[in-house]
Structure formats: C-alpha cells, structure tokens
C-alpha cells in the first residue's frame, strides 16, 4: 500500500480506536495511540520512493505525494510526534478524557502530515482545517473556564487565516484553472504583478499559524494552557506548518528573484524581527515557566521568519535549520516543563526551585535545550544562529534588523537563565521535598531530543544535507555544505568538532569539580530557614530570588508592556459583541412589528421596483 494512504489510515484508525477504547480500558488508550503513531512513523522508511497519488474527489483533482522539501517537514512532524506520544503515556496518566485527548492528538498529526503531503490546494486546505480544529479540541482540553476566550481566540484567528487562504485558493482556480500547487507556482500565482491579494492572503494565513506579531495573541495561552505533551508538537511542528507555507508562497520569489517582492519581504522580515524582539521582552516578565516558553516559542518563530524573508540561499538554509532545531529544543523544553508540572504540581517559577537534585536528568535536558536556544556552541542552536547572523549581515543590507535580532537573542539569555534558575537552581524549598525524577517513559524522549541537539551541533551536516536537497526543489542550485564545519563568506572555516570537543572538555572538568566539591558534607538550608540568624520567617515575607526576578529590567521596560496587542483585540471583540447585541433587537418580539417589516419591505420594493428589476 502506498505509505501515504497507510499513514493516514493508521492515524485515523488509531484516533477512532483510542477514542473508543477509552471507555473500555483507560490504561490502553495511551499505548494504542503510541503504537499507531509508531506504525505510522515506521512508514518513513518507505517514503522516499513513493510516487504521487492522483485522484479525483468531488470534481476536484487531488494530488498527494512527497518531494524533498515535504519529506524534510514530514520527518520533523512524525519523529517529534512519536517522541511526544511516548512522553504522553506517563504524562497524561490519571487525567480525564484520555480518549478525547489521544483521538484529537492523532487527528492533529494526521492533519499536519496531510498539509505537508498535499500537492494541491484543496487537500492542502482540507488538511489545514483538520489540523486546526483538532488542535482546537486539544487547546481547550485543559482550559475549563477559558474556553470562551482562549480556545476561541485561537480558532477565530486560525479561521481568519484559513479563510483568507480559501479565498485565495478559489481565486487561483478562477485565474489559473488549477488547484495543483506546483503548476500554479510555475504559472506565477504568487508573483505580485497579477493579483497581489493572492500571495498576501496566503501569507496572512501562514503568518497567523506561525504566530507573527500582530496575529500572535492566540499563541501564548494556547501554548501554555494545552497539555505539555501536545504543546511540544504544537510549538515544535505545527507552527512549522506556517513556515512551510511561507516557503511555498515565497518560492516564486526565490526562484524568480522578483524585485517587486522586495517590499513584501521587507515587511515580513520586519514583522518577524519585531516578533522576535517583543516576544523576548514579554517572555522576561513571565512567572510561569510554560508561558515563558510560549513567548520564547513565538520569538524563535520570529527568527525563522526573518531568515526566510531574506530570501537568500543562506537565509533559507538558516530557516530550515532553525526549523528543525526549534522543534528539537522547544519540544524538549516543553517536555521539561511538563515533567516539572507532573512531578512538582506546578510550573510557577515563584513557587518551586532547586529541582536540580530531585530531577537531574530533566535538568540535563533543560540545560542542553537552553544552550541550544541561546545559541551557544557546541549545541545545534549555535549553528542556526550563526547562519542567521551571517545571512542577515552579508546579504540583507538591513542593519537595523540585525540589531533587533542581536538584541533579542541577547535578551533570550535572560529568560533562558530565568527558566533554568527558576525551576532547577536556587534554594530547595520544603514544598518540593517529595518531588521525584520523572518516569522513564517521559525521560527517554527528552533525552533523545537533547542528544539530537548536541549531535547537530557537532555535525550540522546531518541537517544541511536534506535541507540542501529541499532547497533545490524551491529553486536554489549548488547549495554548499560541510558535515562538521561552518564557512563564512570570507572563506574562513570553523571546524565545529574542535569547538565541540573543547567545550565538552570544559564541561567535563566543571562537572568533576562540582562532583568532588559536592562530596563535602554540606547542609542545605532553605530560604525560609533563617533561624540561624536569630529570626523567624513570617508569612508573606519574601526571601527568595524567584520573585521579582528581573524587577529592575521590568521597570525599565515598563512602557513597552503597556501596549498590549491582546487588549486591542479584546476590545474589538467586545465592541463587536455589544454591537451584535444591540443589532439583534430588530427582532422585537412583537408580531405586528414583523408584519410592519413585511409591508415596509414590500413598499420599498414597490417604490424602487423599476430600478431593481428590469
């Protein structure tokens, strides 16, 4: 059977099965879901030699198939989802409505997979919508009382994006007579001379999915409030659908180097830059680790969009590379947050601290991921940042943007450190005394992701290789890459393995030192344990660093926080609702008034009948 069909069928059957089996035996639900995900992922081995699947549905010719670019994203989706499902088994243990969760989760994966393999706009849109509504079901899973606002916000924004796309799609059919993506792109659908709204509408749809700044407000709560095992996929893979789509839209631009698109790409780049910077600033003041990560996710997506919109070989390479890396480390970080939430009961950084001794492996994963996030060698994030900077500096001529990116990636250190410190370092508190290391089924996927992050840091070529092939598909020829080295425009080469080994050595040294130091007999003193200084801790007294962590910075950046996009959108929503409430009063409830409407409408029609009908 064609692996596409079998993956779709397995995922769908798994979804139904998981939904159904929940009422029979709750223990099996997670395993069923994991096994079906595994079966689906096993099909990856057969993917490359698949031929396109063409068939007609509802009078529309649909085409599913792979290409190098699509495969690149399929790998991200399926592997990350597989790890996340393994993680879910323990993470979701004991929660309600497992069937609902796993069913919707599998459908989401199915939707993402479908989006990527679609070679025509109709099935693209169908899967896009499946992905959207099934993820909506997951987002509202936790947010009992927030359904009205948060889940709906996500859905409304997604719908705006999706419907903008749909508008563009039907007009593509009108103007070009085809739904085939490749044909349409060759025909110049996304060029700017003919119908500018088509690329714009598509870009809007993808920008919303990728949480670009004015349309990002659904993202923080959606990321933070869904179950973490889903957020790992949500932020890691699903937001990449926006990136994938932007690649599609901009592909014409890359291929033709259309000068008209300059403004467009500049706007996109600036939006990405602003997103990166602002989201970083917001991330700083979060006290909840999950929200912090959510904002961090948004800012990382900003980088990717910036890289994409430079439109050069290097930039696209950076974007593709960052897409993988972001999936890896942000997936790992959300899993870490989930593990902490599961074990300690909360992710509020003001409440818990010092988990390093309780959850050392989780800390290790968090550390590696944070290093990757901030872009320090030898972990993979460094390579991505390097590519991004180089692309911006050498090829974009947009130094303000470079400054913005530099600023935000520097500020990223701040929140990354806060995350690490808030959860794992600092004083041990009484409340966290009984916390244990996360179960093995949760640790394995996290560790796998951490290892991937390290390996890609030393051998970035593992990702460069498929990325280069993928870029050829969009229209970039002769993409150079090396397995273990980075080169810049000036011809200097940096061998990453040396850096890696050096830094690894430093690490080992520090670790040994710490271990020996730890051998000494020390007593751990809680923050509230101040009796030695002759005082007693009073209720409500703040002795920890956890609170007001970046207070001075917050004060400095206070004017920025005033302008909340969220409030504008909410005001808009409230105003609309108030208007609707007012407007529906035309249904007065008085039958006579309705009769009056009839006669009035009749009179109007009779008065203007000669103008309306001819």
């Amino acid at each position: 059977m064609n692996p596409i069909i079998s993956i779709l069928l397995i995922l769908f059957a798994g979804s139904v099965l998981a939904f159904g089996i929940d009422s029979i035996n709750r223990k099996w639900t997670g395993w069923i879901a994991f096994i079906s995900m595994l079966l689906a992922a096993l099909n990856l081995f057969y993917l490359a030699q698949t031929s396109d699947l063409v068939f007609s549905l509802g009078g529309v010719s649909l085409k599913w198939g792979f290409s190098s670019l699509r495969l690149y994203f399929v790998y991200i989706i399926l592997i990350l989802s597989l790890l996340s499902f393994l993680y879910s088994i323990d993470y979701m243990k004991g929660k309600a409505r497992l069937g609902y969760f796993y069913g919707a989760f599998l459908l989401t994966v199915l939707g993402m997979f479908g989006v990527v393999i679609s070679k025509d706009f109709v099935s693209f849109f169908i899967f896009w919508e499946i992905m959207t509504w099934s993820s909506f079901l997951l987002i509202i899973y936790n947010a009992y009382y927030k359904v009205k606002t948060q889940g709906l916000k996500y859905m409304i924004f997604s719908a705006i994006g999706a419907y903008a796309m749909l508008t563009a799609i039907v007009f593509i059919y009108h103007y070009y007579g085809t739904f085939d993506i490749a044909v349409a792109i060759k025909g110049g659908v996304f060029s700017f001379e003919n119908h500018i709204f088509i690329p714009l509408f598509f870009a809007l749809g993808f920008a919303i999915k990728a949480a670009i700044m004015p349309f990002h407000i659904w993202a923080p709560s959606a990321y933070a409030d869904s179950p973490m095992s889903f957020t790992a996929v949500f932020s890691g893979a699903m937001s990449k659908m926006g990136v994938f789509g932007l690649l599609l839209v901009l592909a014409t631009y890359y291929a033709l180097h259309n000068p008209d698109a300059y403004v467009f790409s500049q706007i996109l780049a600036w939006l990405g830059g602003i997103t990166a910077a602002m989201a970083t600033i917001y991330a700083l003041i979060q006290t909840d680790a999950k929200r912090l990560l959510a904002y961090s996710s948004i800012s990382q997506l900003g980088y990717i969009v910036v890289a994409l919109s430079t439109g050069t070989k290097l930039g696209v390479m950076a974007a593709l590379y960052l897409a993988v890396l972001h999936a890896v480390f942000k997936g790992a970080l959300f899993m870490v947050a989930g593990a902490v939430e599961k074990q300690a009961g909360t992710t509020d950084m003001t409440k818990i601290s010092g988990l390093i001794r309780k959850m050392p492996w989780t800390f290790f994963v968090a550390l590696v991921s944070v290093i990757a996030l901030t872009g320090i060698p030898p972990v993979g994030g460094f390579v991505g940042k390097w590519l991004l900077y180089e692309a911006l500096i050498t090829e974009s001529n947009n130094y303000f943007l470079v400054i913005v990116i530099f600023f935000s990636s520097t500020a990223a250190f701040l929140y990354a450190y806060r995350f690490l410190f808030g959860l794992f370092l600092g004083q041990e508190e009484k409340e966290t005394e009984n916390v244990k290391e996360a179960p093995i089924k949760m640790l394995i996927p996290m560790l796998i992701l951490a290892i991937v992050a390290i390996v890609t840091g030393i051998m970035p070529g593992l990702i460069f290789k498929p990325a280069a092939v993928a870029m050829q598909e969009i229209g970039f020829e002769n993409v150079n890459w090396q397995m273990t080295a980075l080169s810049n425009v000036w011809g200097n080469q940096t061998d990453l393995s040396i850096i890696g080994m050096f830094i690894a050595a430093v690490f080992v040294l520090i670790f040994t030192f710490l271990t020996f130091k730890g051998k000494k007999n020390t007593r751990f003193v809680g923050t509230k344990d101040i009796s030695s200084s002759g005082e007693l801790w009073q209720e409500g007294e703040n002795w920890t660093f956890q609170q007001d962590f970046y207070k001075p910075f917050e004060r400095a950046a206070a004017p920025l926080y005033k302008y909340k996009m969220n409030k504008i959108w909410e005001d808009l929503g409230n105003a609309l609702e108030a208007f609707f409430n007012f407007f529906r009063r035309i249904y007065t409830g008085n039958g006579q008034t309705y009769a009056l409407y009839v006669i009035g409408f009749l009179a109007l029609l009779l008065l203007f009948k000669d103008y309306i009908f001819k």
Partner: protein
Amino acid sequence: MVISPVHYIVAPLLAAFAIPLLSKIYKDAARVVPGIVLFYNVIISFVLMKQVLKQGMINEVIAGWQPPWGINLVLTPFTGFLAAMISVMGFIIWLYGFRFKRTLKGGVVKYYEILQMMMIAGSIGVIITGDLFNMFVFIEIVGITAYSLTAFYRDRNGAEAGFKYLLLGSLASTFLLLAILLIYTQTGTLNMAQIAERMPEVSSGIKITALVFFLIALGIEAEMFPLNGWAPDAYEQAPSPTSATFAAVVSIAGVYALVRILFTLFDVAGVHQYLIVMGFVTMLVAEIAAVSQKNLKRMLAYSSIGQVGLVLIAFGVGSPLAVFGALFLMLNHAVIKSLLFMTGSYFIYNSGEKRLEGLNGMHKRLPYVSALFSLAAFAIIGFPPFSGFWSKFYILIAASDQKMIFLIIGILLVTIIELVYYLRSVGRIYFAKEEMQDIAHKPSVNALIAMSFLALFIIIIGIYPDIITGYINQAAAALLDKTHYVQQILGSK
C-alpha cells in the same frame, strides 16, 4: 403506471384520513402508520429518482387533462432530488420522534402525527407540483400544519410563536394570491411551464409588480431577512422533531418555491443581484442575532436562517456551479441542522433547561449525543472533512468565477461569526461545570439509529462527496434548463 409522483401526496392523505379511524381500532396506529407511509415515500422516491434520471422528466397529469389545462406533477432531476431528500428526512425525523411522542398523552399523538406527516407531504407537494395555484394550496397546507405544530405545546410561548407565524403566513398567502391573480390575467393560465413560455409577452409593469408580490410572499416562506420574524420563534417553540422538520423540509420547500418562480417563471434582470444582496443580509443579520443567544434552539433557528441566506446567495450567483453548490448546501443544511435539533433536543430533555447553560458538561451524561452534536456543529461551520465544507467550497468557487471577491470575503467573515457560537456551545458541552444531576434520559434506540444515520451521512459525504455530486449536478442542470422544462411539459400534449 404503478408508481407515479401522485403517490407522494395520496399515500399521506389516505393515511391522514384513515388515522382517526384506525386509532379507534389499534391504539398505536397513529404512531406507526405515518412511519409506514413515510417509508413508502422514501421507496417511491428512489424508484422515481431512478426513472427520472433515465427519462429526464416525469410529467404526471391529474384528472387526465394534459398541461396546461390540468394540474400536473413534474418530477425533474431537480424536483425529484428535493422530493427524495425531503422524503428521507421526513422518515428519519419520524424515526427519531417515534418514542418521543410516547411522552404525549393518548389521543394527542394522533393530532401530532397527522400534522407532522401532512407537513412533509405538503412540502413535497410544493416541490413536485407544476401548477401555480396548486403550489399555493400546498403552501397553505404546510402553513396550517406548521402553525398548529408551533403551538402544539400549549404553553404561552407556543401560542405566541404560532400566532406570529400565522400573521406573517397570512400576509404571505395574500400577496401570493395577488401575484397569482396578476399572472393569471396576463397569461390566462396557471401552468408554470406555459406561464414561463408566455412571460415575455407580459407588459413589464405588471410583471414586475407580480414579481415583487411573489418575492414578498415566498420570501416569508423562505425566511428572507426583513420577512423572517416568525422563524426564530417558531423554531424555538415547536416540538424538536418539528423544529428539525422546519429546517430540513419546510425551509427547503420555501426556498424551492422562490427559486422555481424566479428562475423558471420570470425573465427579469436584477433578480440575481437581489438574491445575492438579500441572501447576504439575511445571513449576516441571522448570524449576528445568533451569536449572543441564550437559548439553544433559538440559536439553532437563527443559524438555520443564516444557512438559508447562504443558499439564496448561491442561487443568486446563478451559474451552474453555484446552483450545484446551493443544492448541495440545501442537502447539507437539511441533514446537519436536523441532527443539531435532534441532539439539542436531548440536551434540553436531560437538563430541563432551554438556555445554553443546559449544555454544561453534557458530555458526561450523553457522551454519544454530545459527540454527534459536536460533529454536526463542525460540519455546519464547514470544517473539512465533513459534508458542510464541500457545499461552501463549491459556492465560493462559483462566486470566484463571477469575481465576487467581496462576497466571498463577506461569506467567510460571517462564517467566523458562526464558528464563534457553535464552538462556544461545543466548549460548553465538554468543558463547562455541570450541575450535578444523576437522572439521565438516555436516547432511545430509534433516535440513536436516526441520528447515527445522519452523522454517518455527514462523514461519508464529507470524505467522498462523489456519491452524491452526480445527482446534484443533474438536478442543478434541470433547474437551469428552462426551455427544456417548458418544452417537455407543453410538448407532451
């Protein structure tokens, strides 16, 4: 001729006249006989549909007078499709309500069943008749049954809704009579085919006045915006199977009558633009009113009106593809909205609360019904892969062919409004805190079968629409091919 379209009307009529007698002999006759009759209608509609697709048209004359002299019943692929759809929906709604009616006491069931059955038969009559005045009579049959059924629960609101419906319905029949009179004086006939043939000779002043009267009269039946004050109340107050029938049968018949008269009888320019504008206004206002509804059935009612608005838009666009989309949407609307009313009725039955608060946490008590409600909600918003998506998609493509970009954007924006309130209610079902109530009225088997059938239909059509598109395509072609219609009917003299 063993099976002919006249059976559609005669079988329910026989049953309706016989039920008072039969129920004296066998107590449950009133509940069983309509089911048999409606099932018979389903069977003959399939037989006839097959025949129609082979022959192109069945022209059944009444009393042996060939058209245009006598009344004729016309089954084209278009009317045959709608009649089949209504028959099937009627049977399913009967199946759904089979046990529901057991809660009614004794002889009241008789009234209910007769009225309900005749409402469906009358709607079929509106659709298959080829005679203008006969259509009026059937519209009155539908009207009278609908007024009575709206007031069937004899509470204060039921009577109120029924009276409003009756008031507007009477105005509608007045204007319909006036329009028929005007048409008759000018063409000297009541046969729709012949009227269509002679319409070009009619002086434009009278023609347009008649058109306006038709628009008002049938606009009331088709729930067009300023004329639809009765609709939300009637949907809200009618017993739930009847609400489902309003959505799945009566509104379809109303739209059919409007479209038949505009498309076949008149050759006036501007009608399409009128339909688009009024359809859009209808849709917009209905969805706006639906957003902040507190009452579940009322919300569904406004949503129904909104769907009808979209159907009118699609008919207004008028290209074959648009009409195809409109018919598809009518089918979807009938199926999905009746499923919503059916499931919603169980929520109300369980919580004893007509307001939306009654939905809170319903998934625990009625997991299967909740899943069906969510499915239907998703389908009616137009999420793929459910059937609602395809109809919307075809309509949009058709609109894009006419370069109506603002119409498309408008439709999609309104869809977002629709999405808001449906997802809110789905959210309520699954995530709101419920008030603890242990008594669960589990859905009865027959209702489950009916609802599952509809849900299955939604999914299957959503995944593989080709099952039905062939029929709809022929139906759309049959509606648009006016000359063929006229020739077939008048040529078979």
